[in-house]
């Protein structure tokens, strides 16, 4: 302990002084710049608050309101009615297939694989095509190199000779990388308090919508569900979640806009415990993983969720399929933030990959699974409730190829 502290301190100390020093120089330079450029806005003198102040137009600052299923206690909605998200009745919908949804825009990959097949043998161009196809699917340089490196060796050893064999081997290799992982949503049904599943992620990935769909699916599967509106930041996020609660027959707990999200989660767990509800789904505000204080806030939400009778069995990171290599960093940082000291199983327990029905391929999941060992659990293939499906590696890889 002592040595590690000392070791870290040596560096830290130097860095700090360096940063302070640089800052000093920076200020001097900037002053000169601003003197020359009067249009430049001066920096605000006060340390910036992280969130802009919210107009206190609703409720008390800290109180949370517990609303029941019938939700007649809900405050009147704001001037513009919240429009329901598009939702068809589940029974008229067929379970979507990966291939069907992902293949809407497959040109780039299909074209590359097509030209690989079109050649008589495996040539230099073959490798270029494959590399380009994988990179285009956001698989990333490292994993692409690994995949192709292994195949190149096998081609050299004459294990693989034809383009068809090569593609089959690549497909098998990619599937294998994702195979053998437990992707079920963990639920502890031994007697005790409610299970808690938290949903986290950067802004705009579709957390609230995902929760709504999970709520409906879980409720239809026979579990009683409570939705906790832990996104107290985004305007009208709670209304959006409330719509989902009504639609899925779930109970609903919200706090004041701009209030403390961990108190909302705490109240939600409390309320669920009192009512004997099986599962609490906790929404959180979208945040960039580079904002320390917001990540700290998330850590607190995670800790508070298991403070009472709640048992946090899933912390799901929602990632948008259009996300590039930053998805890896996101997973790492969110995992760090939601780690509970002394609990190795804590941190991010699974990833939900949304918007996979667009033209993006979501190839970053290979890196997330193999480098960080975090399983992809659910994927969003469309807007309706049945479009949120368990991740299936074979289907996913097949959809990339066909």
């Amino acid at each position, binding site marked *: 302990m*002592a040595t590690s*502290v000392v070791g*870290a*301190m*040596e*560096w830290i*100390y*130097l860095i*700090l*002084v*360096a*940063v*302070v*020093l*640089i*800052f*000093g*120089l*920076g*200020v*001097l*330079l*900037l002053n*000169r710049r601003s003197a020359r450029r009067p249009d430049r806005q001066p*920096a605000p003198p*006060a*340390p*910036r608050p992280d*969130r*802009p102040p919210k*107009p206190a137009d609703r409720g008390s600052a800290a109180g949370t309101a517990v609303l029941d299923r019938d939700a007649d206690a809900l405050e009147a909605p704001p*001037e*513009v009615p919240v*429009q329901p*998200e598009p939702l068809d009745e589940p029974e008229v919908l067929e379970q979507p297939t990966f291939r069907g949804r992902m293949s809407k*825009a497959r040109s780039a990959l299909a074209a590359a694989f097509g030209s690989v097949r079109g050649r008589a043998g495996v040539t230099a161009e073959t490798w270029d095509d494959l590399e380009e196809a994988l990179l*285009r*699917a*956001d698989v990333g*340089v490292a994993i692409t190199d690994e995949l192709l490196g292994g195949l190149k060796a096998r081609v050299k050893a004459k294990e693989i000779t034809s383009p068809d064999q090569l593609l089959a081997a690549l497909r098998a290799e990619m599937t294998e990388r994702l195979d053998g992982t437990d992707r079920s949503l963990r639920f502890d049904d031994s007697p005790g308090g409610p299970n808690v599943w938290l949903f986290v992620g*950067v802004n*705009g990935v579709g957390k609230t919508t995902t929760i709504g769909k999970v709520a409906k699916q879980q409720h239809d599967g026979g579990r009683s569900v409570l939705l906790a509106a832990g996104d107290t930041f*985004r*305007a*009208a996020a709670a209304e*959006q979640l409330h719509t989902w609660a009504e639609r899925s027959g779930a109970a609903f707990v919200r706090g004041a806009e701009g209030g403390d999200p961990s108190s909302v989660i705490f109240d939600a767990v409390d309320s669920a415990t009192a009512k004997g509800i099986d599962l609490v789904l906790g929404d959180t505000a979208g945040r*960039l993983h*580079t*904002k*320390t204080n917001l990540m700290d806030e998330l850590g607190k939400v995670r800790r508070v969720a298991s403070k009472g009778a709640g048992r946090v069995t899933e912390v799901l990171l929602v990632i*948008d399929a*259009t996300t*590039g*290599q930053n998805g890896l*960093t996101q997973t790492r940082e969110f995992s760090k933030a939601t780690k509970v000291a002394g609990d190795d199983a804590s941190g991010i327990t699974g990833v939900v990959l949304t*918007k996979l*029905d*667009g*033209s993006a*391929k979501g190839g970053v999941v290979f890196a997330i699974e193999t480098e960080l060992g975090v399983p992809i659990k659910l994927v969003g293939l469309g807007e309706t409730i049945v479009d949120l499906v368990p991740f299936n590696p074979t289907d996913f890889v097949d959809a990339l190829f066909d």
Partner: protein
Amino acid sequence: MFDSLSSRLDGIVKRLRGKGRLTADDVDAVLQEIRTALLDADVNVGVVRNVVARIREQAVGADLSKALDPAQQVVKIVNNELTQMLGGETLKITYAGRPPTVVLMAGLQGSGKTTNSAKLARWFKAQGRQPLLVGADLQRPAAVEQLRTLGRQIDVPVFSEPGDPVNTARRGLEEARRLGRDVLIVDTAGRLAIDAELMEQVRQISEVVNPHYTFLVVDAMTGQDAVGVAEAFHQTLAIDGVIMSKLDGDARGGAALSVKEVIGRPIAFASTGEKINEFEQFHPDRMAGRILGMGDMLTLIEQAEQAFEKDQAEAAAERLLEGEFTLDDFLEQMQQLKKMGPLGGLLGMMPGIPKELKDAQIGDDALKPVEAIIRSMTPLERRKPELLNGSRRQRIAAGSGTTVTDVSRLVKQFSEMQKMMKRMGGGMARKGKKGKKGKGGNPFGGGMPDIGALLGGRPGGPGVFGGGMGPGGFPG
């Protein structure tokens, strides 16, 4: 974490050292690393191919200046090339002769259209205009409500009515004329680019309001798909400029380069934070360095400028250079520093940080013992650490949960650092003048101390500063 390009190139640099001219093989080795850096930054594969080809042309046979090592020279070529690609013509807003000037916002779900509509409105307001926001995103639940909330914050009226988005847009335009607002910003629903119905809807809105500017909002974290999305929107709407959102994250933002290259329209604005005023016109020179992972001093300084109490920090910097920097000052600056975000992220932005340091995975917890030690000192001790005798040190160690060795080390290093700073104070005057010439063109130019040199020796070792501050880690 991505390795910074400079650390990746280290091995190659050693091999190239002493060569007077780059051969094709040398250039290939360097370009391979640059290619990886660009791909890691999510620059589109096709765009990477073109960039690399262009750079190869410039780099092969380029005469090497003695001052720069060959790899750095290639990096410089790359940096210039990217800056040029990202920059080119900038978008200058000209206002319509017959107001209102109409701006249409388009983009994917979750890219940040609504937030950026409000930010743009605030920007126009700051230019002395009177914008009106129109909420034509009737698809996403509560999108209009979000826009209204933001509108209230910036004191800009918001028009919307339930029903048909196309009609809302049309009525919004009439409303702007009626109210005499001179800029109209229309927020539209976001959908997947391949959603034909939604694309048709936004096309109709565009037809009805006949925008002077159509902006595409692109998430900085977007991967390879950015190009496809931009092409699809450009085909439907004729994009005039791009707004990069979420640039305050750590995504390297290769999407910016890809989109610029493919649709040939400038990146007009960048959203750099959640606060409504964190929105600015785009700086191509900074983005180039960021995509290459070369660190970005200007961004760092700006972040610092926002996080630190300016007067205090300036005074502290003065004291630092005069050798009168106390542990109190240090503690205070450390608190400010914490506000700038995770230490690891800050290090990533500094050029010239040794690789082993970046890899050290320095958590913010590492600051805690330092903080605890200083907090366990009396105010007098903080001002005069030389007072610290054995028993005082013992007390401090007990109070902070550290050992006497830790306390002594901190005190020793602090006083050494103080001496160095004082020595540097003399050099500062000269350096400051040189910095003036920097003109903010190249973020890696002179004016910044080289942290590499600063940290080059083992901490506490003699002569850490050697010959004073060298230029930044990259050629200027």
